[in-house]
């Protein structure tokens, strides 16, 4: 399963607008996407509840995995969101 590790750049971490954007994007792809802290149980990236519940803050390293036909495209887009400052999202 393709996976990437990325350091979270948005100031709010995975909350508020970055979280909304992340979940919205995860839902746009057919691939099943999971996200979580490294070495922790990953959660469904298409669930706002689950993603917010991770309590990811700015500077955390998170792991994103995807499985499905467009997995790589999904990972490209999702890691871009995680590594873009909030005001540029």
């Amino acid at each position: 399963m393709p996976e990437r590790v990325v350091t979270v750049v948005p100031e709010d971490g995975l909350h508020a607008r970055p979280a909304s954007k992340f979940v919205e994007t995860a839902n746009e792809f057919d691939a099943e996407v999971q996200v979580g802290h490294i070495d922790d149980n990953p959660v469904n990236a298409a669930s706002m509840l689950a993603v917010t519940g991770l309590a990811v803050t700015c500077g955390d390293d998170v792991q994103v995995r995807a499985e499905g036909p467009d997995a790589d495209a999904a990972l490209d887009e999702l890691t871009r969101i995680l590594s873009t400052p909030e005001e540029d999202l």
Partner: protein
Amino acid sequence: MTEQRLNGVGVSPISASGTAIWYTPEPTLTDPPAPETIDGDDEWNRFLTARQTAKSELQDEREQTAAAVGESEAEVFDAHIQFLEDPQIESGVESAVESGRPAEHAVSETFSEFIEQFEGMSGQMAERADDLRDVRDRLIRILSDSERADLSSVPPDSVIFAERLTPSDTAQLDPDRVAGFATVAGGRTSHAAIFARSLALPAVVGVGTELNTVATESTVVVDGTAGTVIIDPTAETQAAVGNESIAIQTESVSTGDGHSIEVAANVGTNADIQTAQEHGADGIGLFRSEFLFLDRAEPPTEAEQYETYRSALESFPDGRVIIRTLDIGGDKQIEYLDLPTEENPFLGERGIRRSLGPDEDLFKTQLRALLRAGRDAKTGSGTLAVMIPLVSTIEEVTDARAMIETVASNIETKGVDDAPDGRVETPEFGVMIETPASAFLAPALTDHVDFFSIGTNDLAQYVMAAERGNDHVRTLGDYRQPAVFRAIDTTVRAAEGTDTWVGMCGEMAGDPSMTELLIGLGLTELSMSAVSVPRVKTAVQETSVSEAQALVENIREATTQDMIKSLLRTSVR
């Protein structure tokens, strides 16, 4: 009766007094029927329908909030929609209805689980619990078909008391009726707090359960600076609040670094003139002369107009009185003029177009009355100024000016009525800047006029091609749109280094959160509804021209309405 003080977190540096109104939005659930009487499929379909309704409500509220407050405040509704459609919520509700719970209870129980989880966390996470509660209560309200507690129709000067206020609650608040609010829960960064700051509403949050002891209809003061709620305030306390919110200054005011700014009032009737005096206006920045012509069977005579203008001038013996000549057409209709029906009245024959066309005789009569009033009024340093509306060409300006000269010389040579003969001085002459054409032509116009008065309501409407009365395009017609700002900026820059001074008489001039920006741009006169005069005078005194110019530099770079709004917010002390 002694006053009682409760402490919380003040979230906006303003105070107000009003009448407490408790707002209890949470719907109550009745006991569920026995599980065997429940049809799981029916309940599941009820949930799906309610979810659809909730989603369209949220989308509507998102739009309203974006228009009324700002895009960034509206984004919380996106998160609500995502919580609403969350797969974990969906599966939780699905299994609950399958096991025989009615949809309301299934929703309540599924959400509660996550709410508890979030409440156990700190800071931002705890605030997500508020969002979940908000979504849950919305779904339960829709499922139980209960009426929404209505926050939009509270009496004026209400202070809303609540356990907490959610974005859906604040979206319904009418800031003109709500004096402020106080909540049991919440912190400085809660939605309610952000909302209070962006609308300049006094608010105290996180007071704790003691707030529950305050009865509805108590008289209260909300002090957003100290973070206190004062119940049954003494007369002194209330007076202190009154003075703070509306300190009337009858003297003219200057910025902190000594630039004097004329703060004048917009008037239409004699009653308005009195209100303007009572609120400490320095003069009249917009006398809407068409009010003399409305609601009557025939136009006012020259004598009647003369009396009205003269009395307006004498009401402000040491101030400037700017009278706008007849502005008819568009949304203002007059029966005796037999105005044609136009397909696009706002783009039709209105303002100066009529005065130089079919209404030329009326216009000449008005000018005679104006010039005579200016000559005869007993004033000190006060002056009469005349301005013409809806200018879009240089010819309109030169023609109107020529007409004033002609009328002035006619009065001089022939004399009128019982007025003494003699030289009639032509008054200060200006144009309204309210069409894009006039903003583009501003550099050329400076050769022909003494002043510009920017009418932001029409200017925004015409620059943005967004009709004022149409709610669907309200965000577009806002004066915080960068295109509107640029039209204003162009106009002011055109006048720099010339003898033409620039003022403003639209709604923007009366918004104290705009004062710094307008002064930074170089405006020297602001005219507004009389009630706004005290606040704007205070805002002028709090402004430093050099800081204001720095703000202007930043706003010049802004390319979206959101960027302008956020720059303005951060500059507010």
